[in-house]
């Protein structure tokens, strides 16, 4: 029998996501795919397999039961997770034994967590991908009672760890100019990069609204702009002057002017900025942007070399007292990073 993962309980915004569908822009279908593509790369590194579709869980996870022993990887925004009520760590891989229950709760930081499985999910592809593209009507959200078939796992380790970058708390987002930046003019762009924004509640797979701590932004002749192509990361300024960062499931073209575009390697950080967190945009010249992206890609290519075996957790070590656990004394109250001149 084909192994499967049963969804016993599902958060409100759980979908299957891979890298989406490139090549359909001429038809008006945007790529879609995972909001945080880096989380899929991390899962692939942890499970030593090519990138496969994962369950994307926005804010809240779900409860799952596997029909056979299954390797799993937990990546993206850290969430509270247990296997048969024993806590398991995020940013790592585990064995989910047949019949055991995996519970994934709410996010601890960031916004979107990912559950990947060894062999990937084997649901049928639509137009070359397994990603749900809700706006286009491809696929749908996952619900309790659903059973997802699993692909054949070629095998590999479990209990591996991959410490991620810190992209889960907002911060600085790299941007560069694009086709409509000139409509805003130098002073407006300068004001934009000096502004602190707060991630708004209005956020989905199409775009994320960022509220400025000052008056909104505007472009000359914004109402007469001809509708033009959109790429993921474009920062669209709507009527009230607040920017929306357009994400993977945005419309393919749009008539609102766009002040700049987020560098592809910083889109995961945008996706993972939690509600209410602050962020700023930093403008890079085209040359700087190219250099920065090349470096980010090289880091993604090196992810597999950063995967390490998990240090055994103390409560599972039977002969715990035989170890020398303390050497030297540390203070529980002193801040070790505070300078004491």
């Amino acid at each position, binding site marked *: 029998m084909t192994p499967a993962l049963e969804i016993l309980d599902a958060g409100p915004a759980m979908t299957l996501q891979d890298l989406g569908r*490139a*090549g*359909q*822009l*001429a*038809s*008006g*279908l945007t790529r879609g795919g995972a909001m945080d593509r880096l989380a899929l790369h991390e899962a692939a590194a942890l499970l030593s397999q090519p990138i496969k579709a994962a369950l994307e869980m926005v804010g809240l996870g779900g409860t799952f039961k596997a029909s056979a022993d299954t390797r799993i990887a937990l990546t993206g925004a850290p969430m509270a997770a247990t296997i048969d009520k024993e806590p398991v760590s995020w940013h790592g891989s585990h064995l989910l034994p047949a019949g055991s229950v995996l519970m994934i709760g709410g996010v601890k930081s960031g916004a979107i967590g990912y559950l990947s499985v060894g062999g990937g999910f084997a649901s049928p592809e*639509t*137009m070359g991908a397994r990603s749900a593209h809700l*706006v*286009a*009507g*491809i696929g749908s959200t996952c619900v309790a009672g659903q059973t997802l078939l699993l692909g054949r796992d070629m095998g590999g380790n479990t209990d591996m760890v991959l410490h991620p970058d810190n992209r889960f708390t907002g911060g600085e987002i790299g941007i*560069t*100019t*694009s*086709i409509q930046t000139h409509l805003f003019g130098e002073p407006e762009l300068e004001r934009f990069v000096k502004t602190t924004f707060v991630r708004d509640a209005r956020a989905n797979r199409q775009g994320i609204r960022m509220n400025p701590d000052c008056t909104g932004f505007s472009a000359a002749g914004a109402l*007469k702009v*001809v*509708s*033009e*192509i959109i*790429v993921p*990361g*474009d920062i669209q300024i709507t009527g009230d002057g607040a920017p929306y960062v357009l994400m993977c499931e945005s*419309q*393919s*073209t*749009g008539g609102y002017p766009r002040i700049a*575009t987020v*560098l*592809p390697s910083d889109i995961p950080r945008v996706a993972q900025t939690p509600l209410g967190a602050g962020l700023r945009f930093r403008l890079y010249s*085209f040359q700087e*942007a*190219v250099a920065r*992206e*090349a470096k980010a*890609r090289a880091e993604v290519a090196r992810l597999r070399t950063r995967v390490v075996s998990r240090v055994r957790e103390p409560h599972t070590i039977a002969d715990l007292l035989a170890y020398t656990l303390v050497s030297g004394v540390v203070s529980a109250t002193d801040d070790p990073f505070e300078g004491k001149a």
Partner: protein
Amino acid sequence: MTDAPQIARVGVSGVLVTFGDTLTEQANLAAVAFRAEVDAQGWPEVQETASTLVSTFLVVDLIVVEYQDIFARLSALLDSYDWRTAALPAGRKLWTLPVCFDPDVAPQLEDAARVAGVTVKEALAHFEAARTRVITLGFAPGQPYLGMLPDQWDLPRQANLIPRVPIGALVIAVRQFVLFATSAPTGWRHVGQTAFRPFDPARDVPVVLSPGDEVRFARITASELAELEAKDSLGGAEWSLLP
């Protein structure tokens, strides 16, 4: 903007060639024809192309492809021909789409006619005589923008959006029709209803219309619409190749 086509970098992920800063027939034709020419060149650096209302878009990974190199090649291609006089690509289709204009499913037909300064009967005569062209597909997958209608139909968008029109809704504004591919809010006026789904991922060919195709409407009754809706997602659409 000057009359000359403009080449611009789209962030770090593509290049846009724009043929005008307002939507004109000429600029749109140039965008469609230039896209076909770029496709014919078969440059390996170009991952995909699309035409928008007035531009040709090329997906190019500018992290590894020198922008100056692609810019130079596009300049040379632009200079090789007057794209504003370009003929439409070969293999275009003429589609006949059944549309129901009954008030129940065309709630703003009367309002649209009033704004255009014609009677409903005259409006319907215009729509049935119109032979529009797919200017672009976009916003939602497979969703056609059909134009250009005479100046009389330069209707402004409504400030108050219709909360939701159904899939297959025919709406009108700014000298164009849009045939909705998804159920969505719109500021355009809902003047007709088809059983045609511009995008159906379960269909052999999910998107059947292409930019450059021509479309005319055949009026049907509400019961004929219901029959077509029950049949399949093509809604009775038929096509023949244009010479």
